[in-house]
C-alpha cells in the first residue's frame, strides 16, 4: 500500500515536471493561431532576421526538449527510495568537455552567422540608390510623445523655411532603399517597425542613419520600443508605403500645400 502511494506520488511529480516542456512547446505550435506569432515581413532584410531567429529558436528548442526530458527522467528514476543509498561521484571529465564544447560551437556558429545580417542592416548603408547617408530621404524626430518626419525642401536642405514636417504618418516609396536620419528631441526613444524587423534607438544629440527597403505597399505600425516617460504607451506612428510614382506626387503635393492659404 505504501509502495503504491509512493509510486503514485512519483508519477504525479514526474507528470508535473513533464507539463513544462509539453506546455512550452505547445505554446509555440499554437502561437500562430492565437495571433501571437510574428507579423508578416515586408522589408528586404526581414527574411534574414527571421532566419536567424529560427536558427536560434531551433537550437534552443532541441536543447530545451532534451534537457527537460532528461530532467523528467531523473525526477522519475532517481527520486528518493528507502532501499537505496545515495552514491558520491567525482564527476565525469568527458561529459563536462562535451557539454562545454557543444554550446561553445553553437555560440560561435550564431556569432558568425549573424554578422552578415548585422552588417547589412546597421553598417553597410545603400550608396547606389536615390537616397544615401549623405542625402537621406527624411529625418525622423522622436519626442515625448510622438513621431514627426521631416522631408527636405526642393534643394535638399533639412533646415530652413521650406522643409516639410508631418506628424504621425511616415510616408515612403515602395521597392526603394530608404535611408533616413533618426533624431531625438528629448530622451531615449526607439524606432520599432515590427513588419520591417527593424529597431533602432534614437539618442538625443545624435543623428543616427537607418535604412530599409519596403517590398509591399500599405499602412504599418511604428511604435516606440524604449520606455520614454509617462506617455510612452501613446507614442505610435504609421508607416505609409506608397508606389513610387504616387510617392512623388504626394511629396509634390505636400510641397505645394506649404503655400496654401486656407
Amino acid at each position, binding site marked *: 500500500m505504501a509502495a503504491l502511494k509512493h509510486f503514485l506520488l512519483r508519477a504525479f511529480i514526474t507528470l508535473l515536471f513533464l507539463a513544462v516542456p509539453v506546455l512550452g512547446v505547445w505554446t509555440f505550435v499554437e502561437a500562430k493561431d492565437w495571433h501571437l506569432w510574428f507579423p508578416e515581413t515586408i522589408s528586404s532584410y526581414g527574411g534574414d532576421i527571421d532566419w536567424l531567429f529560427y536558427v536560434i529558436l531551433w537550437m534552443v528548442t532541441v536543447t530545451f526538449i532534451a534537457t527537460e526530458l532528461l530532467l523528467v527522467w531523473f525526477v522519475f528514476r532517481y527520486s528518493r527510495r528507502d532501499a537505496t543509498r545515495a552514491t558520491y561521484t567525482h564527476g565525469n571529465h568527458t561529459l563536462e568537455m562535451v557539454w562545454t564544447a557543444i554550446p561553445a560551437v553553437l555560440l560561435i556558429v550564431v556569432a558568425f552567422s549573424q554578422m552578415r545580417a548585422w552588417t547589412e542592416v546597421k553598417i553597410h548603408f545603400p550608396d547606389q540608390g536615390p537616397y544615401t547617408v549623405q542625402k537621406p530621404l527624411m529625418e525622423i524626430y522622436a519626442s515625448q510623445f*510622438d513621431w514627426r518626419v521631416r522631408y527636405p525642401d526642393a534643394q535638399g536642405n533639412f533646415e*530652413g523655411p521650406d522643409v516639410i514636417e508631418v*506628424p504621425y504618418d511616415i510616408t515612403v516609396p515602395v521597392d526603394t532603399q530608404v535611408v533616413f536620419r533618426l533624431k531625438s528631441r528629448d530622451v531615449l526613444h526607439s524606432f520599432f517597425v515590427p513588419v520591417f524587423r527593424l529597431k533602432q534607438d534614437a539618442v538625443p544629440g545624435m543623428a543616427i542613419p537607418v535604412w530599409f527597403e519596403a517590398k509591399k505597399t500599405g499602412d504599418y505600425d511604428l511604435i516606440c520600443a524604449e520606455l520614454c516617460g509617462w*506617455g510612452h504607451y501613446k507614442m505610435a506612428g504609421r508607416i505609409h508605403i506608397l508606389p513610387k510614382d504616387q510617392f512623388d506626387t504626394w511629396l509634390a503635393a505636400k510641397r505645394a500645400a506649404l503655400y496654401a492659404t486656407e
Partner: protein
Amino acid sequence: MIERRHRRAAFLAAAALSSTACSFQPGAPELHYSLNRAEVEKNQQLADDPIAQTKLEGALQMMFGTPKAPGFLVLPEWSGDKFDPNYWGEDHVHADAAAWSALVESNRAHFRTQLAALREGRFDALDRPRFADDLWERWLRKRERIAKDGPDAKGDDGTLREDAIRDFEEYYPTLANSAAFYRNQCYHCHGTDGGGNGTTGPWLNPHPRDYRRGIFKFTALKGKARPRPEDLFRTLAEGIYTTAMPSFRRFSDAQLHGLADYVRLLAIRGETEILLESFYDPDKGFDFDVLKENYSDVVGRWREASEHYIAFEGKIPEMTAERIAHGRSLFSTPGEKGGANCVSCHGPAGRGDGPSVWAPGKEGVEYAKDDWGNQIQPRDLTRGVFRFGRRPIDLYRRIYAGINGTPMPEHFGMTITEDGKQRTMNESDIWDLVFFVRSLGSQTEVASAGGAGHEGGAR
C-alpha cells in the same frame, strides 16, 4: 533552515502584504464636474455661501449634464434656426463636403475589418471597435434584427445590411461616447472639468490648457474669438510640437471631431460657470433668466467664431531680399520709434530673449505671465519650431491676430512710423515680417548676411 522567529516575521510580512493586496479596490472613482475653486474664492459672497454653491452645481448640471451623461441644454429660441449644440460638430462637419468625405474615408479605414465582415455576411465575426460603444450598441440591436429577418430585409433606409454599413461608414460619436474617450486619452493632463489640472498636469511645462476660460491660443481667427471646430480638430490631429500635446492622428477623424465637441462643451461650461460666479448676486440667486442670459451669451460667442476667420485671398507674395529687409526693420525697431516692437520680447536676434518678459522685482526676477498665470516664454524664432504650424499662412495669422491669452498682440492695424510718416500696418507689412521670421531659422544667404541683429540689416 529559517529560524523560528524569522519564520514568524516572514509570515507576518506575507500576511501584511496579502491584506493590503486584498484591501486595494481599484474601482473607478465617482465622476462629477467640480466648481472652479479659484473663481469661487474671488467672489466673497459666493465663497461664504455653501448653499449657493450647491445651487450653482445643480444649475450647471442642468445646463451641461454630468461627465457620464454630458449634454447641452437646448434653448427654445434655437429651434428657429435648427441649432442644437448636442449635434453641433456633426452638423458642422456634414455641412462641409470635403470634411465629411474625409471623415467617411477615415471611418472606412478605421473600421475596415468590420466593414469587410459585413459585406461578406460574417455577422458574428465583427470585432468590437475600441472607444465606440455607441456604435457597437447600435450594431448589436441591428444584429438582432438581422438574425431574425435576414440581412436583406428592409431597414430604415435600404436593407438592414446597407444600414449597418452606413452606420460604420458615417459614424460620428455622441457626446457621451466622446466624454468616455476624453477620460481615456485627455483626462490625465486636462482633468475631468478641462481645467488643465489632471494628475499629470503639474509636471508638464508648458502646462496643459485650462479650457474653462474659453481662451485657446491657436486659431485661424482674429479678435480673440473662440476657436472654430476646425481649429480644435487641427490641434488634436497635428499636436503641438515641443509640448506634451501629441498628435492624435492614430484615431479616426470622427473620434477627433467628437473630442473637439466635448472640449467645446467643457469650455462653454467653464466659461458660463466663471460668468455666473463673478456676477453672483445673492438677491437674484441663480434664477433661470440669469442662467439663460449667460449661457446663451457664451454659446453665441462660439457660434459666431467663423465670422472672425482671417481669410487671405490670392497668392502669397514672393519672398524677396527687400521684403525680408523691411521685415527685419519692422521687427527690430522698438515701439517708441514706430516699429512693430517684436524685438522687445523676441530679442534682437529673434531668440526669445527680449527685455520685456522679465523685470527686477522685490524678490529677484519677475517674469511676465500669460492669462493662465504661467511664465511667458517668447518663441525662439531661430529654431524653426512653430507650435501651431510652420506654413507661411500660419505665421501670417499668428502675427496678424496675435496669440490669445498671451502678450503677443494683434499687428494688423497697428500704428507704425516709417520715413517720418505715421500709418497702420497692412497685409503686406505682415508678410514682410513673416518672411523675416522664416528666414531666421534657415541658412539662406539673405538671413545670414549681417546676422539678424538690429544694425546689420540691409536697409
